[in-house]
């Protein structure tokens, strides 16, 4: 774990709070009709997926002693070093000679890439193939809720989906505890 990593207790408190949020939705879902139920489960699935994503992050953080690189390709940025003369270039815009800076795409540098974290766990054999499949199911299910990926409004979300995600959440907790 890194000095700026969150502790098990902080993760537990955050998960606990989110599950309290979930419980309020679960409590109301039984009172509404079938069409409205899918709206509640949509919100429940989003909250549960956010917990699982946090668990995967925490799991990698605990498994790896150093901040692991998730992508082979670095993040490129450029730092201006020398300003070139506008008069010589005959340009109204300013041009610079710049230094290229390569930053590795590590766990800490690219927070929020559920896909990259899942792939990393699979590539390094940190999790079983079946757990990887379940994590990808959750990621894809969560992505269908994101508006930019929606191609139709006719989608249904169910208790069975929430239950499947919950099963994976429990497995991920076992993995974290086994670290």
């Amino acid at each position, binding site marked *: 774990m890194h000095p700026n990593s969150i*502790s*098990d*207790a902080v*993760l*537990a*408190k955050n*998960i*606990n709070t989110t*599950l*309290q949020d*979930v*419980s*309020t939705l*679960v*409590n*109301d879902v*039984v*009172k509404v009709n079938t069409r409205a139920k899918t709206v509640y489960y949509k919100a429940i699935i989003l909250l549960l997926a956010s*917990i699982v994503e946090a668990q995967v992050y925490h799991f990698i953080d605990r498994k790896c002693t150093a901040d692991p690189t998730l992508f082979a390709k670095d993040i490129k940025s450029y730092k201006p070093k020398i300003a070139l003369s506008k008069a010589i270039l005959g340009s109204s815009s300013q041009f610079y000679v710049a230094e290229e800076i390569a930053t590795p795409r590590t766990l800490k540098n690219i927070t929020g890439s559920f896909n990259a974290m899942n792939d990393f766990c699979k590539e390094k054999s940190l999790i079983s193939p079946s757990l990887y499949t379940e994590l990808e199911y959750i990621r894809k299910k969560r992505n269908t809720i994101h508006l930019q990926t929606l191609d139709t409004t006719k989608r249904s979300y169910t*208790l069975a989906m*929430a*239950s499947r995600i*919950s*099963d994976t*959440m*429990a497995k991920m*907790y076992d993995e974290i*505890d086994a670290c």
Partner: protein
Amino acid sequence: MTQRTTQAKKNKPTKVSTVEENYGVKFNVRQKNMNLATYFEQQGLPSLAKVLRKTEQHIQHS
């Protein structure tokens, strides 16, 4: 009257301990004093109950 009520509510100190107190949610449970983990089990989400119990253990041991 409405403004006064709203203001009074804002100034009222909030005691945070249970979901019912936090959210004002009345749970559909038969037994009194049922904890949240048992509630999840009743609602067909036993794994959430397991996770919740784990979080409680981690919080207590911290």
